[in-house]
């Protein structure tokens, strides 16, 4: 059992002569050339795999093609070229009826603006997917109630969507997606329309739920902080192409190009980085011989700072077998915060060096 979801050189082109446009893109034409001919390349050559239980975040600005990509994953949009493999099954080869069946049972979706049906109660909304499947009313209501409870909405079943706050409405949207027991959750900028505080709550709740439910989630966002918080893997999209696909640390520490680098400038590194990314692996071997506190590779950055402040020497990092794998000197912590990874340069001030160099 390898990947749950895999895309294989996906293309989506809107407009005239789509096949020809794909051919040109394969030969290296870019978006602008095609746009002159009246065709829009929304997604270009997207290939990635998502493992079971993973949160895969697709990050990009508006117009980067991330929403189009998401809609090809459940067949709402048909790819112009390429394949989508879900549990080894090629979704692009399915007919309408089978595709609907897959959407009803195995893939569910959470929307940016909640997309709750205003003419149905909260309970009916949560049970909508089950109603489509033809689940009998009693079972449907029981499962919908359970899904609402998981999302923290117990007691709100009889309310109507317009009586709830934005955050609560999106909880209903989440409950609707969870109620069908789908393996794959597609979340399209699901938290973007919420206030920052509510957004954090929802992110926390999603992570908490994920610990027990272990769904496979593809999450679309334009917010890199959100991507870093949620994503086991992050794909950064630009102009229809995936420009980098890696873990949060990969992107933060080893940005693939200037575009990604410019993106991560505003990211709060202290929330993302762990000891394994910061530590110096150039070791003498005796750094952990004292009785001082030690870190492990997953220790968050903020905790490292706290430890470093209590110690006179660099923090030692031990792995699960208590083997020394690295050290974190204080200067390195400061360097990461300021995005400065080079060695310090010498200074002419006599305070720093004993020697005096005369200057004019």
């Amino acid at each position, binding site marked *: 059992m390898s990947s749950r979801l895999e895309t294989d050189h996906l293309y989506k082109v809107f407009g005239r002569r789509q096949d020809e446009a794909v051919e040109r893109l394969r030969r290296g034409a870019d978006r602008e050339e095609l746009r002159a001919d009246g065709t829009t390349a929304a997604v270009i050559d997207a290939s990635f795999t998502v493992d079971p239980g993973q949160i895969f975040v697709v990050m990009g600005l508006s117009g980067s093609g991330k929403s189009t990509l998401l809609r090809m994953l459940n067949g709402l949009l048909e790819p112009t070229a390429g394949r989508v493999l879900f549990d080894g099954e090629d979704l692009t080869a399915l007919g309408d009826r089978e595709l*609907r069946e897959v*959407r009803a049972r195995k893939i569910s979706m959470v929307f940016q603006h909640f*997309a709750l049906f205003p003419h149905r109660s909260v309970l009916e909304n949560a049970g909508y997917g089950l109603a489509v499947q033809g689940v009998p009313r009693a079972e449907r209501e029981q499962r919908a109630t359970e899904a609402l409870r998981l999302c923290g909405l117990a007691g709100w079943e009889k309310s*109507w969507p317009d009586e709830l706050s934005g955050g609560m409405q999106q909880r209903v949207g989440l409950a*609707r997606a969870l109620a069908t027991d789908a393996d794959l959750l597609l979340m399209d900028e699901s938290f973007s329309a919420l206030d920052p505080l509510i957004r954090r709550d929802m992110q926390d709740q999603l992570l908490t739920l994920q610990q027990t439910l272990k769904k496979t989630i593809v999450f679309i966002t334009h917010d890199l902080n959100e991507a870093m918080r949620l994503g086991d893997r992050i794909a950064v999209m630009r102009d229809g192409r995936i420009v980098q696909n890696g873990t949060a640390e990969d992107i933060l520490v080893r940005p693939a190009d200037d575009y990604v680098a410019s993106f991560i400038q505003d990211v709060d590194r202290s929330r993302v980085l762990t000891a394994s990314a910061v530590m110096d692996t150039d070791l003498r071997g005796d750094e952990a011989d004292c009785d001082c506190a030690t870190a492990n590779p997953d220790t968050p950055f903020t905790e490292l700072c706290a430890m470093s402040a209590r110690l006179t020497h660099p923090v030692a990092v031990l792995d699960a077998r208590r083997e020394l794998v690295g050290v974190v000197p204080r200067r390195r912590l400061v360097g990461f915060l300021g995005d400065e990874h080079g060695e310090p340069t010498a200074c002419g001030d006599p305070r720093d060096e004993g020697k005096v160099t005369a200057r004019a």
Partner: protein
Amino acid sequence: MPRLHLGDWVDSGVDWLVTHLSWLFDAVKGVVEGMYDGIDAVLTAPEPLLLAGILAVLAWWLRGLVAGALGFAGFALIDSLDLWEEAMSTLSLVIVATVIALVISVPLGIWAARSKAVSATLRPVLDLLQTMPSMVLLIPAILFFGMGVPAGVIATLIFALAPGVRMTELGIRQVDPELVEAAEAFGTKPRDTLLRVQLPLALPTIMAGVNQVIMLGLSMVVIAGMVGTGGLGGSVNEAIGRLDIGLGFEAGLGIVVLAIYLDRMTGALGTRISPLGRRAAAKVRPTVWSHRPRPAVAVVGVVVLALVAGGMGVFGSNPGTAGASATDVGKGEEITIGYIPWDEGIASTYLWKELLEQRGFEVKTTQYAAAPLYTGLATGQIDFQTDSWLPTTHAEYWKKYGKQLDDLGKWYGPTSLELSVPSYMKDVNTLADLRARSAEFGGRITGIEPSAGMMGLLKDKVVKQYGLDGYRVVDGSTPAMLAELKRAYARKDPIVVTLWSPHWAYSEYDLKKLKDPEGAWGAGDGVHTLSRNGFAADHPEVGAWLKDFSMTERQLTGLEAQIQKSGKGREQDAVRTWLKDNPGLLDRWAPVDGAGEKSGAAG
């Protein structure tokens, strides 16, 4: 520019349709008539006030106590104006037209919402249907469906179709695309997406469309009245024809009551049946005035009233048909008489209605404009009409339809056509006197309908012969001409109008017929009875009676005066009174072998 013979193509197209698709039109006609008769039978079965009660309970349930009370008052008003049957007939017509319009327009609207191509194709068609002058559509409708209700319903529904389609399309397009996407993302079938998401959410807009359909239908009722649908539209037309402002207002008021009732009820129904509307309504604090009974109570109320209504229909005094007698020649056979609301036409038509009913026929009288009347007669939908001016005035119609009509002879004559001026125009006595005075008359001769035979005669012959080139013959309508005459007469303004004798205007105003020494108007006409081909063979007795029928001027003016005195809606009562005052006429005009004898076996 080469002349495009579009009109000819349309003509031949219509002809082709009439000859080749008559089975289809007959089927449509059957359905429409069946629906109309059914609904009308239900609506006219109970006592008027009882039905008003039922409608009031509906209003109470849908909108509240005030609406219920006002609804009852409105319908009671209609009843007290003696317009109940007409109102119910109009209501039935509007209901049938609305139902059919919705059956067509909602699916079309859905289709248009789902396909841009369909939407783009439909739009100009809808524009055409909605803006093409309705009379233009009415005449083909008569050719296809015949006179009366079906043609009226079709014309009404064509006119009312557009908002139904447009509002349905708009409503569905307005549904948030994200909701539709959500439905699809959960694997909803397209049909269920439509039924469970799009339609419920589009319902308020669609109901606004329904409302528009009904309102347009009601506004079309008057025009439909010209093709013999009867009802309030017929009353309005009749009132216009007779320049009877009072009756016109009453019938118009009836239409307004129906319109307001239907408007409020469909609006409330939209709130009731749309889930969003129900939610909004539930939020409003109830007051005594907006109190509404629970649906169960309302249903019980309606059922009880309906049962009472039905019971009264069963046990009530049903005027039993008198047993067959020797004078019962007709034995319930149906005869249809058409008439143009001209005084001699009304008088003779109701006279014959009474005579024939006395002889055991079922007689239906319906009023039309001249062109539809001849069309209906030629296609055999009307049995006969008594008001054809031949050989001159109606020569055009005779030329066109003569072969399909039988002339049952002249019953009154001679008539005359003339230009008339008020007698205060001292020095104008002959047509020749007009020539030099065009400035005084403003260069206008106030005419009537351009389709009227005498207008053709006036423009082609009279004007030339007397050198009246300084005048413009103003087309209009008979009521407009009479109104203009009345206005000018009151202010003693100069006016010259087209008029004919016999006409009540001569007794109403002091008018002078301009002499026609050159005989340009031709010798006077006779008023003829025309029937459809073969009517006399189908009903030999009636044919014989009509052929022998004649009236003297004293009789005709006497009857007309009696009808004028009795007032609108009581024409037949006036005829009865008049017959009572002139005994023996029944047996003279409709003689029966051995009338009054016991053993009068039909020969």
